[in-house]
């Protein structure tokens, strides 16, 4: 089950559409748990890693995935090979991930773009890595054409996801 926690106010239509896309992509249920509160010590732009760790526990099963959705910005990260923009972050093979919609304009019309970001982060929680196919949601997020793509997985990533979900269920 994918549980969505909104850290800011979102249009219910957006959430409904997002849940629908995630359900279609992963084949597991998706529900909106309700609003969550960002700890007072955190300020925009958020440090995604710290925010994920600081968020209070959510009632969920061990194999459930929790997606935090925020409309505020996430701070870019400085890595060994340079600075990379952060549109979302996840715990690999873990439970939590966070996605920001700050870079998506006109949210109601571009739910698929948000879903694409969410799919990538949720994919990482299932243990998937970045993909080579530009059409796949697991492709590197900072490439210019990423936002124009559809919220889909390539065949390889879809099979991997199904495998992981099956393994988690058994």
């Amino acid at each position, binding site marked *: 089950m994918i549980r969505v926690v909104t850290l800011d106010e979102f249009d219910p239509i957006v959430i409904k559409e997002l849940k629908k896309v995630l359900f279609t992509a992963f084949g597991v249920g998706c529900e909106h748990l309700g609003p969550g509160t960002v700890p007072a010590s955190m300020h925009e732009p958020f440090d995604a890693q710290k925010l994920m760790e600081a968020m209070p526990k959510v009632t969920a099963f061990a194999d459930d995935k929790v997606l935090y959705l925020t409309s505020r910005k996430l701070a870019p990260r400085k*890595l*060994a*090979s340079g600075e*990379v923009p952060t549109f979302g972050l996840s715990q690999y093979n873990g439970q939590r991930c966070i996605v920001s919609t700050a870079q998506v304009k006109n949210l109601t019309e571009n739910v698929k773009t948000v879903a694409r970001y969410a799919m990538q982060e949720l994919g*990482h929680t299932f243990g998937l890595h970045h993909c080579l196919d*530009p*059409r796949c949601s697991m492709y590197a997020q900072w*490439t210019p054409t990423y936002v124009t793509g559809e919220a889909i997985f390539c065949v*390889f990533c879809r099979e991997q996801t199904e495998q992981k979900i099956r393994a988690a269920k058994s």
Partner: protein
Amino acid sequence: MSESLQLAVGDRVVYPNQGLCTVTGIGSEQIAGQSLVFVSLVFEETKARVKVPQEKLVKNGVRRVSSGDDVKKLFEFLTAEGDKASLDWKKRARDNVARLAGGGLVGLASVVKELQVLSELRALPPKEREQYNDARHLLVTELAAAMGASEADAEDALDAALFPVGKERPKRSVEEFKALLGGEGEDGELGLGDDLLGIDGEGVEAAEPGEAGGDTTVEGEAAGEEEGEEKPKAEEPKKRGRPPKAAKEAKAEKPAPKAALSDVEVTLPQGLPLAPPLPKKRGRPPKAKPVEVVVQAPAETPAPKKRGRPPKAKTAAPAAAPKKRGRPAKAKK
């Protein structure tokens, strides 16, 4: 035994092709009268346990987690020019397996980089796609351990070197590839081995088995066709394979792409729709008409066999009177 593998409990090591392990114990055991020192390892990902004789650690390729210097070298390697990938699929597969088994951090990175460069030319076949995924997984986990960072940061650091931020991946052509390789693969072999021909069944389906002559491969057939166009036909009487009607059709469809080594297919960049495939012929290939066979070799062809039970041989003896059915009439006394 190498000095670098003096392990202690709690050390993290890398087991080739498997990933990170933690040493949970070192102890000696009696096996077949011999006293051997075993190192107990636990795989961090699967929590599987394995005991390896200390003497065989180096032989098996077990090594310590890479250091900070190795990480620096890795990023230098990733950002350096020299995008090179062998076009010979056999050589590539052999090299990649060897690098995965014992290539260290840079060896893993070279597999990832090479396959990524190749994917800019054409989509990877399933086996290589899996190999790429395995290599990337091993690389990311080791990099995360070496950097002391999360896997998400390690993968993003890796990708920031491979896919520069804000830039799209380059789309390569065969010519560019050949130029990079300095002539390797000029014989036209693009590494489109059996595994690649199986992608989506495109290569195999394009050449129908009924038309291919039965015992020739797709590549062989394509080469044969090319040769056939240039050279005069040496062996005229041998008419194998296609019936004349099918040959006419093939001539009519001359501009259609070759079975497997179509330039269109190869040079298409990833992400764009492929060239429209040839229309599939559904059902069985048409059988050669017996009339045509008779025309080709009328003297040799035997008379067509009649199906069913052979007719009874006619005998010269007169036909016996039909048997009367029922009880025979009683003899009159």
